[in-house]
């Protein structure tokens, strides 16, 4: 059996976020070198601030400034910083309760080694050189043995507040299509379409997934289907899709290959788009080096009878 295929799959999106009043003030404050918390009804100051009181669920909007100095409440040493983390050299992840706050903020603490860090140690903010209104405007915390800084009296009103941010998300996977699809892909490289038959319901699956989704049993028997097939249904695409270099209009069709019990999806070419019809008989057109047929074109055979493919719609 050939080795199962594997390839990296990176999913990466730049999500936009509207901040709402509280996060807007907090991030704009960081840009201006001011740390803001929010006061709850029972007089506690939460840093970072939240929009709703975690205890009473009431909306809270009373912003107060806290000091850029504080105390480590707990920490963990990070031996090997990873991509995107605040510092490139080993550092401590620390929860820091800023002077004037009742809750702690998570950030990096720059220290020469774990022996230089302890709970209760005094630290202060090291501001980033260029600040944009993001949590990274705090470059990190650093050890500090001076007197507590005094908080200013800022109340969160700013000129030109930041109202939205872009939050990048990235996931790194190793993707494997599995045994059945690997065999299918290998067969395609010889321009053959090979599915698998369910031992129970006898249906032939293209592409095979190694198991029958209705019977829940493994499929192993290989069955070559096509290359010809019937257009069961289709649509005419008139809008250009992002990342697809296909001129519109084009026909996107469901094609039941002869011998398959499930239609696959492909583009139809070699015929004006407005002459494509249900029942049209088609065959694949390959381009050198491509994994899948470029498109399907009419074979010239008479159209299939509706009754012959209506169960495959």
């Amino acid at each position, binding site marked *: 059996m050939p080795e199962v295929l594997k*390839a990296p*799959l990176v*999913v990466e*999106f730049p*999500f*936009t*976020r*509207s*901040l*709402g*009043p509280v*996060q807007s003030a907090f991030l704009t404050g960081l840009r201006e070198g001011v740390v803001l918390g929010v006061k709850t009804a029972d007089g506690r100051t939460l840093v970072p601030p939240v*929009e*709703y*009181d*975690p*205890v009473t*669920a009431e*909306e809270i909007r009373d912003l107060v400034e806290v000091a850029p100095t504080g105390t480590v409440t707990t920490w963990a040493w990070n031996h090997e910083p990873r991509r995107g983390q605040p510092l490139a050299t080993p550092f401590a992840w620390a929860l820091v309760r800023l002077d004037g706050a009742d809750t702690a903020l998570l950030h990096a603490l720059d220290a020469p080694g774990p022996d230089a860090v302890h709970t209760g140690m005094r630290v202060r903010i090291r501001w980033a050189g260029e600040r944009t209104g993001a949590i990274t405007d705090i470059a990190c915390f650093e050890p500090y043995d001076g007197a507590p800084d005094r908080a200013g009296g800022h109340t969160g009103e700013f000129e030109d507040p930041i109202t*939205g941010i872009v*939050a990048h*998300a990235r996931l790194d996977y190793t*993707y494997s*299509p599995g045994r059945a*699809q690997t065999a299918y*892909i290998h067969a395609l490289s010889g321009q053959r379409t090979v599915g698998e038959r*369910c031992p129970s*319901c006898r*249906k*032939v699956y293209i592409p095979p997934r190694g198991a*029958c*989704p*209705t019977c829940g049993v493994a499929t192993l028997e290989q069955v070559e289907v096509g290359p010809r097939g019937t257009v*069961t*249904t*289709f*649509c*005419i*695409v*008139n*809008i250009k*899709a*992002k*990342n*697809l270099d*296909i001129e519109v*209009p084009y026909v*996107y*069709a*469901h094609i039941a290959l002869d011998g398959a*019990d*499930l239609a696959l*999806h*492909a*583009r139809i070419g070699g015929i004006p788009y407005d002459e494509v019809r*249900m029942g049209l008989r088609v065959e694949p057109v390959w381009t050198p080096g491509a*994994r*899948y047929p470029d498109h399907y074109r009419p074979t010239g055979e008479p159209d299939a009878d509706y009754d012959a493919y*209506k169960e495959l*719609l």
Partner: protein
Amino acid sequence: MSKEPVAVVGIGQTKHVAARRDVSIAGLVREAAQRALMDAELTWADIDAVVIGKAPDFFEGVMMPELYLADALGAVGKPMLRVHTAGSVGGSTALVAANLVAARVHGTVLTLAFEKQSESNAMWGLSLPIPFQQPLLAGAGGFFAPHVRAYMRRSGAPDTVGSLVAYKDRRNALKNPYAHLHEHDITLDKVQASPMLWDPIRYSETCPSSDGACAMVLTDRAGAARAPRPPAWMLGGAMRSEPTLFAGKDFVSPQAGKDCAADVYRQAGIADPRRDIDAVEMYVPFSWYEPMWLENLGFAEEGGGWKLTESGVTELDGDLPVNMSGGVLSTNPIGASGMIRFAEAALQVRGRAGEHQVDGARKVLGHAYGGGSQFFSMWLVGSEPPDS
């Protein structure tokens, strides 16, 4: 021991729009939840548990709404659950909440669903570039358009039916202050003259992208007795699913949809849905799905759904009004869309639908579906409690 009857005593929605840049996601869900509490005249302290639903994670990148939104929904110290069934999620979220009341696990449950499509990208979320696979060639509309063509072939429906649905739903939306699209100058000609995107689906026959949230307060018999306004009573509720693709799958009328409806009707004692149900709020993201679902849900025989649409039966003043709110065609915050259907059904039987109220609506079906027509959730609500 029989189930506890479940009542809807509070309903809240945001005004659905293309982009709510003035609020965070927390602020958005809060707005809907507070309106539901106000309707029920309850406070956060009266809520025993919160059940939340949203679109698939990649859509707007919030992986754990149950964690991130607990403060905003007053859920700290209470059970908070998240439900996940693609486009049908708003419906299944409401049913999970309802089941907690029916099973007497909790007395009063807040259920909520949301989506900020302006801060997400459904196209990305639906078409990840999977290695070795052929790229998707047509987008969401291209996925559904061939099934619409199959329906037209199977039923012999004239190709004008889709535009009739869109024209009706957009006019209904004008009567709903919460609807996203308010096309005051809509005409049938305009719908029919709109560009063909994925032939046979026209631009005006597709749903918009919306930001919005919907919330409901569900409670038991004792809670309903204390409610300041008439409740809606759940008479039946069910969910069904099936694989996206399998040999023999009927995309025009999926078996899971038929089975789900049959289960709801059995629970509610509905012998003939066309006769016994007064109105339907169903999930129609592309206009042709109205006649398709009318058949799938048993309101018309196979091939006959389009005749109800064409003859005006599904108009707001028709014999079986469909999508009184303006439907998904007028408002589509995907994660919330299913719950908006359920909420509209409840508004109708409570007599609180305002300008789009159907006179004498006593039993109304709310319907949601999602994925590749593979998840279904429905409830039937009534103005009178179920027979005990």
